[in-house]
């Protein structure tokens, strides 16, 4: 059970988690991070399909070996249940009665087909928030379309503008579009909890991954607005889109700099060529917007970056107010001085892996009495549950079922 000693904002909220794979579990993982009691319902025997997806610990597959599952399911309790059986469905409705939120990520229509649609859940609990996450939403012509991250980013995100002018558009890394949708779902859920507190009425949320991507200010929203205002379609930038901009080679890798007419003077000062600012072609923002300067200035800049390491360039950029950053690998990130000093990555022990570092909290609450506000007050996360680890605990604790009743459910292959 919970070893929580700290007050957390969602520690009075119970979430019944019917989600699987990426977007839904990312949502409930965040709710769990801030104190919610997340009861994850998993399919009997196989569990959440993400248990079958890499990366596996030491590359060996197994129900309790997926790093993806471990990452996405911290702070949750696992109950195995056959949703298609009558008794299983009844148990879900009973759990929903005591829950504040149900989150699900089935294809549209599936919950209704299972007899667990909004009407049934609302009848069980008139103050419930039902958060539904799907690729395209519950309505509209694409409702039944399928979508992997690459498809959803291409349709919704700024893929057409991502990459190089002479090459194909590229996606964002991994499952980012789905994770972002899960994050939006967590925000939506907390807002809806507020709404239910105000009027006592249940609410249904319809979250479309496609729409959360189109809505995203990752350049997509900005470009959509830009197009509306001036009719320019965006295409992928050439390697150096503005003077001094680009990922420039340096001693031990690449360093990204944002230049352009407005920011160039700081870059010029950084490389110690102040005399350029006295020349008419560099003196004013209007002059510096001239695309002919791009190549000319790179001839000054790149020899200078080539002489320095990523770490040295980062310090120089900070010192001169230059917008820039090193192109790190994940290994660089894990060893980065600031992330290390702030103890961002959290070690979590798991029976399969032993202690392993996980990404830290999205944001941290400070201790209310901390004098300078620098004291963080966050509990340690609990590892992802083993399949069905909490079935008995939840059925007896939350539903008050007897040992005999639980045994019978097990014999009937409901749990």
């Amino acid at each position: 059970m919970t070893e929580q000693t700290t007050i957390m904002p969602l520690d009075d909220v119970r979430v019944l988690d019917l989600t699987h794979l990426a977007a839904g579990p990312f949502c409930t993982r965040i709710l769990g991070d801030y104190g919610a009691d997340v009861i994850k319902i998993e399919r009997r025997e196989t569990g959440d399909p993400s248990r079958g997806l890499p990366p596996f610990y030491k590359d060996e597959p197994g129900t309790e070996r997926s790093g993806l599952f471990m990452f996405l399911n911290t702070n949750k309790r696992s109950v195995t249940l056959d949703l298609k059986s009558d008794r299983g469905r009844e148990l879900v409705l009973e759990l929903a009665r005591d829950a504040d939120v149900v989150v699900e990520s089935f294809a549209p229509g599936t919950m209704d087909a299972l007899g667990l649609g909004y009407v049934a859940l609302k009848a069980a609990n008139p103050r419930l928030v039902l958060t539904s996450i799907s690729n395209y939403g519950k309505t509209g012509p694409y409702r039944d379309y399928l979508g992997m991250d690459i498809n959803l980013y291409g349709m919704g995100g700024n893929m057409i503008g991502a990459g190089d002018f002479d090459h194909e558009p590229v996606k964002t890394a991994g499952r980012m579009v789905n994770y972002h949708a899960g994050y939006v779902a967590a925000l939506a859920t907390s807002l809806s909890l507020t709404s239910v507190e105000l009027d006592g009425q249940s609410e249904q949320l319809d979250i479309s991954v496609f729409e959360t991507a189109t809505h995203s200010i990752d350049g997509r929203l900005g470009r959509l607005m830009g197009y509306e205002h001036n009719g320019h379609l965006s295409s992928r930038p050439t390697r150096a889109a503005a003077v001094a901009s680009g990922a420039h080679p340096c001693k031990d890798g690449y360093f990204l700099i944002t230049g352009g007419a407005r920011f160039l003077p700081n870059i010029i000062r950084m490389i110690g060529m102040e005399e350029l600012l006295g020349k008419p072609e560099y003196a004013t923002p209007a002059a510096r917007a001239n695309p002919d300067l791009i190549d000319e200035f790179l001839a000054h800049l790149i020899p200078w970056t080539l002489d320095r390491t990523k770490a040295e360039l980062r310090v120089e950029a900070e010192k001169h107010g230059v917008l820039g950053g090193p192109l790190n690998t994940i290994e660089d990130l894990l060893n980065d001085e600031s992330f290390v000093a702030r103890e961002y990555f959290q070690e979590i022990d798991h029976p399969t892996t032993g202690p392993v570092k996980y990404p830290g909290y999205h944001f941290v609450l400070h201790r209310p009495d901390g004098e300078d506000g620098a004291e963080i007050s966050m509990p340690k996360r609990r590892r992802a549950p083993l399949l069905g680890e909490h079935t008995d605990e939840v059925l007896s604790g939350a539903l008050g079922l007897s040992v005999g009743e639980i045994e019978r459910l097990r014999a009937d292959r409901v749990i």
Partner: protein
Amino acid sequence: MTTNGSSGTQKLPLEGLRILDFTVVWAGPYSTMQLADWGAEVIRIESLQHFASTTRGVMARPPVEMVRAQSWLGYPDDDAGERPWNRYSVFNHHGRNKRAITVDMTRPEGQEVFDKLLRISDGVIENNVPVSMERLDVTWERVSAVNPNAVMIRMPAFGLTGSYQNYRTWGNHMEALSGHPLIRTYPDLTPEYAPQGVPADAASGIGAAFAFLLGLRQRRKIGKGVLIEAATAENFVPLLGDFVMDYTMNGRVWTQMGNDHWYLAPHNVYRCQGQDAWVTIAVENEDQWVELCRVMRMESLAGDTRFVDMESRHANRIELDSIIGEWTTNHQAHWVMNRLQQVKVPSGVVMNEKEALEDKHLHERGFWHPLTHPEAGTYQYVNTPWKASKTPNIAPRRHAPRLGEDNEYIYKEVLGFSEDEYRQFEETGHIGMDYDPSVP
């Protein structure tokens, strides 16, 4: 009681909340946009003496050459106009439903205005490097002393502590440091070609809005306000969770994946008929592979030993992608998507802005909503990023505030300054609708 400009009858869940907004660029403003959309009275606090770059434009008065060179950061018809800060498309978008006042907080009377406002507010949101906020004396010590019930969300890129605390970056630099562009860039080109999207900004905006709501819950529990630190880089790293885990569990470092999937193939973007037209196709299982071959009228491919199972297809994906790419070149992207989706193969058009704005699915779901800005004109704005059954279609109600647009309402109605005092603030350069001429 505050007003949020809502025209509908349905009460919005955040009505009655007042939030002071010191956000800049995109990530912070996107967070207060969420809160304003749902009814909070968000008041942007701006100064006529200081222009926060890339918020109301890259520059207050950009030369025409610059407007043309950076056309995707749009002004109406590429014309920045007399008051460019009121015509910048991105600001006007995320500024909807918010209010804006001007005050120079570097002067004592400006600080007094802030104190008065803070006492009757629920909290503060800012996304600046700590040193900038210290200069204005907007710190947790100050905020909690003036209003012990205030919730404060601070979102500097790398946190309030550590050696990078005053390292000023945008989303793309912070993402570079966090490993994103090096993972997603092209396998066959040097990292100089790395793309620079900023999904981190979007995630920070969502996260900070969520954090503010949690802060309100926490305040109710502990009986006083709370400081929440949402370092945007730390907020972003979980979105790379798969890569972090593969490294910490197995020591594996993924780089330059482009459109490759870890193990699925085909999984790529393919050129279609038309100008810069592309379609994505991803195959998750053998059924989908057979269907794809059938649609391409290349049934024999399904039995080809090079492509017979997922592992072989992944190993031979370059060959496979060129076969599929040859086929797609002869078709329209929308045709490929719809045809493949009919047989349950994941596929999607890489939509440009025009296609997204005209997309029938988004229109049918009420994703867009028109709004008129007095100095910029009428455009389609996005609705909320999800549909809530009790409050559908609520988002864009009032145009983004012009610089200083709500001075009169806040100074006089909310803070109760007299006409004489108001005029005094005007004469001393706190109140106005134009940046000081010295601002570039």
